[in-house]
């Protein structure tokens, strides 16, 4: 029975009592407790059910490596599954509940899986799901989704705040134990900018629990003295509760600060994700103790030896009254001493080694404890808690020699350095056969941009497992009991029977046993990476911190090769799980993405407009009136524009100023048509192609002055085209005298469109907008309603049209005046869908509809916009390639259904026969299709092989269970002569 000890507990404040609940049961703890310590102090040994077999599980560890004790924290919007109790600081009012059990933790129906364990061997999923795809979707997935997994995600939006931050330093030290503190102090004294991050709330790591003297001081005193000096150094920043989660390319670091997990509701952001750019990262992340693989090593009450003494020393929690220690090394004897010091009993230390003579074992022996040499545990007695151990010869097959009653087993299979950070971007490891561990190979570090090292390792993370070695590395002295060598023990007993191997767990979180890894080897898995995926060893949220080395040692044995020959799996960030909230940071809700707003956006919103995304803009799609469908609104807007006048917010169009003595020459290269000859005061529609000849963008080019042009681009193309221009100017034609400026956002642009458009501008007053003064494809500057404007006579609808550019800060003012002036003429605003339909009625192409990156202007009947006189333009050579001039290229035509219905957008026209894949051959596809309220029927454009030569032909477009028949016609459906725009 675990309980709180009457005295001690270096991390708890007994004057501050906290209350919390576990599965609804009220419990108490102290300030400074982890949830793990408080649960254990309250006698709660059973904490969860395992992932696959639903076996009862309790605490294995006291830190980040804990595989079993994951609980659900909080409720409703603040519900959070799979939280490690060892990493959760207790706070008043904490609510925790166990996971993966039904109906209750003590009685769990799913535990039947444990009785059927032979049905769930390694590779069970793969073997089962090979049966059929249908069986997966209909049978296995639903069943497994219910049965497997641990906690459940919250169903409400997270109400807490998260953020990110950037930091820069010369040296980042990961881990605030003795080695990390010493490294930070040394670098700090040298004047480096240092950041020291410690993932827990406490400095000093294991040293205060494990004891010894550092420079003549107790670990606690040395830590206090070192921290005091570090805090005087302005160039050193100490960060608690901050985990260095991963090292990434070029040494950039992601770190995870748990700002307010332990103080919920205090108004601070909960987590903060740091992106750090250190010169070098020193990994001082310590080491993780390994379990031993014996039958029943997962029964609640079997814990890592270091964790047992952590709970006793740090939190004054006794994991049990009678603690049996089982080990292959001297370090574990510290646990026996800690148990004895706490006044508890150690019935025996079971040591797999034959001759145990070390200083620590002798201290334990001197206190009257039996040391059973050359022995192992045959199996643990008890199911939901330890009741005893059956002891056998380590060299045998598990024949029981004696049975010892106990309620806690402290096991130690040695230690593995936490080499994760070193390894994330390629630091190599060497196998140390004497210490049975992988340590960083300092001659093969991860390297940065200059090929130099971007990481170093110190302390236990560097394979130095004793205080004197750690101190010596840091140039200090230490006194500590010497330790005799360990004996590598990967299974206990060495000749364990299959029955024992079936119950000897390697990966506690994913329920992978010794027998599973051996089965994988027998089935031909020789790569450790494949074995990992086949057995799921090391694939859970603990990423195999406690299981990886044991697992690959078992695999090596099964394959008859050495451990370094097998090698490790790849270490990947993050070291421990980090919250999605921290990853999202501020990017949620309104700030999920930048939302671009025109100067008139407030007005659009006030009309309850229906919008569509165009890049990061939200352009009005239509402005439905009360009770009006979007379709009806679009039709109304079109009819009103064609009969009266409409107004469009065209501000999003790209506007790039190009100026200089060589600007004309430059634009002649950028566009397929001739821009250098465009007279001042005139506008010309132009096409831009990429180097491969494909149509990239289009828009109206305006000749502003002798040496300056304004190039309009598509709304989505402004930044891309500006970059395209700068690319050519900076990289290819660097000696041409041309400057560009992207003025897209300088102007709000308002299109006044329709037969009564001129009347609206005349009502605004201030400049002559008559045909004589401002003819079609001309422009003029002046004032309208007292505001400075530039007016372009350009039309994308086929109607009389003025596009008015005004400084953006006056956009809203002009818009309001236009709306007011237009009232008398029946003016209504229209959106992008009306714009699209009207341009399609005119047969005007749209970049992204008629083009898809494989279409050249010649395909679209735009040969008229391609200069024959120019020696060159971007794309010209490409357009002369044989397949670009082939007569059977798919070319633009109009399509008119025989019954007036609307063709489905994107539908393909079928041709005779089938292709090699058994699919119908095709002969064209629909690129734009709309209902035209002007023509009162469906209209469409499409690309058809040699289409313009096939006028009048009828094509068939199957779509779903319907067959559409459409005649090839001219793509211009409205005002072919263009009379309406030129009035």
């Amino acid at each position: 029975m675990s309980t709180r000890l009457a005295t001690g507990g270096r991390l708890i404040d007994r004057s501050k009592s906290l209350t919390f609940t576990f599965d609804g049961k009220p419990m108490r703890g102290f300030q400074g407790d982890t949830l793990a310590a408080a649960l254990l102090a309250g006698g709660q040994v059973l904490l969860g059910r395992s992932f696959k077999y639903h076996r009862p599980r309790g605490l294995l560890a006291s830190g980040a490596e804990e595989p079993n004790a994951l609980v659900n924290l909080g409720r409703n919007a603040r519900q959070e599954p799979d939280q490690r109790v060892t990493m959760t600081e207790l706070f008043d009012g904490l609510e925790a509940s166990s996971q993966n059990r039904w109906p209750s933790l003590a009685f769990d129906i799913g535990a039947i899986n444990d009785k059927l364990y032979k049905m769930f061997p390694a590779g069970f999923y793969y073997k089962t799901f090979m049966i059929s795809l249908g069986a997966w979707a209909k049978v296995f997935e639903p069943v497994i989704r219910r049965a497997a997994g641990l906690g459940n995600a919250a169903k409400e939006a997270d109400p807490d705040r998260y953020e990110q931050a950037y930091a820069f330093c010369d040296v980042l030290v990961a881990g605030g134990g003795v080695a990390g503190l010493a490294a930070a102090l040394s670098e700090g004294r040298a004047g480096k900018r240092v950041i020291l991050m410690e993932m827990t709330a406490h400095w000093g790591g294991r040293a205060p629990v494990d004891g010894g003297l550092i420079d003549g001081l107790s670990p606690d005193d040395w830590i206090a003295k070192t921290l005091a000096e570090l805090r005087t150094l302005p160039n050193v920043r100490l960060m608690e509760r901050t985990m260095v989660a991963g090292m990434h390319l070029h040494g950039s670091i992601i770190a995870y600060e748990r700002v307010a997990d332990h103080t919920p509701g205090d108004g601070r952001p909960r987590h903060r994700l740091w992106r750090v750019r250190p010169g070098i990262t020193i990994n001082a992340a310590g080491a993780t103790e390994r379990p031993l693989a014996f039958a029943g090593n997962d029964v609640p009450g079997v814990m890592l030896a270091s964790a047992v003494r952590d709970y006793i020393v740090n939190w004054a929690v006794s994991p049990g009254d009678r603690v049996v220690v089982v080990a292959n090394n001297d370090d574990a004897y510290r646990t026996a001493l800690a148990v004895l010091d706490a006044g508890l009993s150690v019935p025996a230390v079971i040591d797999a080694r034959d001759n145990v003579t070390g200083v620590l074992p002798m201290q334990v022996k001197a206190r009257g404890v039996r040391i059973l040499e050359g022995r192992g545990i045959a199996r643990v007695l008890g199911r939901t808690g330890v009741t005893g151990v059956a002891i056998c010869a380590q060299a045998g097959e598990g024949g029981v020699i004696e049975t010892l009653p106990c309620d806690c087993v402290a096991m130690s299979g040695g230690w593995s350095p936490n080499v994760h950070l070193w390894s994330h971007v390629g630091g190599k490891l060497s196998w140390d056969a004497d210490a049975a561990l992988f340590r960083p190979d300092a001659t093969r570090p991860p390297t940065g941009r200059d090929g130099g090292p971007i990481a170093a390792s110190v302390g236990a993370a560097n394979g130095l497992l004793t205080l004197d070695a750690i101190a010596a590395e840091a140039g200090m002295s230490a006194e500590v009991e010497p330790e005799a060598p360990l004996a590598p023990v990967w299974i206990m007993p060495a000749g364990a029977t299959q029955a024992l191997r079936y119950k000897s767990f390697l990966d506690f979180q994913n329920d992978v046993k010794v027998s599973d890894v051996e089965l994988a080897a027998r089935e031909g898995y020789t790569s450790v990476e494949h074995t990992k995926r086949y057995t799921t060893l090391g694939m859970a949220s603990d990423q195999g911190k406690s299981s990886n080395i044991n697992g690959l040692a078992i695999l090596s044995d099964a394959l008859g090769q050495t451990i370094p020959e097998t090698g490790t799996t790849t270490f990947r960030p993050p070291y421990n799980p980090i919250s999605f909230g921290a990853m999202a940071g501020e990017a949620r809700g309104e700030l999920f993405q930048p939302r671009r707003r025109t100067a008139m956006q407030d007005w659009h919103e006030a009309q309850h407009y229906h919008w569509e995304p165009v890049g990061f803009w939200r352009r009005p799609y239509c402005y439905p009136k009360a009770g009006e469908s979007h379709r009806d609104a679009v039709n109304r807007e079109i009819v009103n524009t064609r009969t009266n006048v409409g107004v469009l917010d065209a501000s999003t169009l790209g506007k790039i100023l190009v100026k200089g003595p060589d600007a004309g020459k430059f634009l002649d290269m950028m566009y397929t048509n001739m821009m250098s000859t465009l007279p001042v005061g005139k506008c010309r529609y132009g096409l831009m192609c990429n180097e491969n000849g494909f149509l990239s963008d289009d828009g109206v080019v305006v000749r502003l002055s002798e040496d300056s042009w304004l190039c309009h681009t598509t709304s989505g193309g402004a930044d891309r085209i500006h970059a395209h221009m700068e690319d050519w100017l900076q990289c290819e034609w660097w000696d041409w005298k041309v400057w560009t400026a992207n003025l897209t956002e300088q102007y709000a642009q308002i299109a006044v469109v329709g037969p009564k458009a001129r009347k609206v501008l005349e009502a605004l007053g201030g400049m002559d907008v008559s045909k004589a003064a401002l003819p079609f494809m001309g422009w003029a500057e002046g004032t309208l309603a007292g505001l400075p404007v530039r007016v372009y006579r350009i039309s994308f609808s086929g109607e009389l049209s003025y596009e008015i550019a005004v400084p953006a800060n006056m956009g809203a003012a002009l818009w309001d005046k236009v709306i007011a002036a237009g009232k008398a003429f029946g003016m209504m605003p229209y959106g992008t869908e009306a714009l699209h339909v009207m341009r399609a009625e005119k047969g005007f192409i749209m970049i992204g509809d008629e083009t898809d990156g494989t279409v050249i202007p010649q395909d679209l009947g735009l040969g008229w916009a391609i200069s024959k006189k120019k020696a060159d333009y971007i794309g010209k050579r490409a357009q002369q390639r044989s397949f670009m001039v082939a007569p059977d290229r798919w070319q633009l035509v109009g399509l008119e259904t025989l019954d007036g219905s609307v063709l489905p957008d994107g539908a393909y026209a079928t041709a005779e026969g089938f292709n090699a894949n058994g699919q119908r051959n095709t002969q064209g596809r629909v690129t734009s299709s709309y209902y035209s309220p002007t023509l009162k029927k469906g209209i469409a454009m499409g690309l058809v092989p040699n289409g313009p030569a096939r006028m009048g032909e009828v094509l068939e477009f199957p779509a779903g269970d319907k067959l559409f028949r459409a005649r090839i016609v001219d793509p211009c459906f409205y005002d072919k002569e263009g009379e309406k725009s030129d009035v």
Partner: protein
Amino acid sequence: MSEAVSALKGESHTGFATVAEAGLTGMVTIRADLGSKTLADALGPMGLSVPGLRGVVAADGRSLAWMSPDELMLFCGYDEAPKIAADLTAAFGGEHSLVVNVSDMRSLFVVSGAKGDEVLMKLCPVDMATLPQMEMRRTRAAQTGVAFWRSGPGEIRLICFRSVAGYMMGLLEVSSRRGGEIF
């Protein structure tokens, strides 16, 4: 010009730092050979000189910032920007240059307070601790491009495109909320 309004009409918020849209501000882009004597001569009467690499200079309420090896940005009064742009254009005469009034395409924000740096530390990959006074940083804030400089003690000026002014204010507001102090 009275009908001109800035994107956020001077909106401001105070948390552990104050973040505010500065309202209408004149901005003039100058693209030219920055070593041009004509340019230096034209700036002289305003008390300004061509700033060095990433530098910002100020005089009489106007600032001139280095934006790239061939681009400067002049910050001035909103109403005087058209004339300054026209005068500079005239001063260059036939010398290859591009001077254009861009006062309407960007929004100017001011972050002020002793902890103002911490607001931008959350948004911009910039080493704030080593950023000197009057040095321009062209970078990003979360997902949008920005440029900023220390314009005075405890004061940072930041520009972004006008269309994302609302997004920018959202970023600044949430990043300056009380309780979110980093140090």
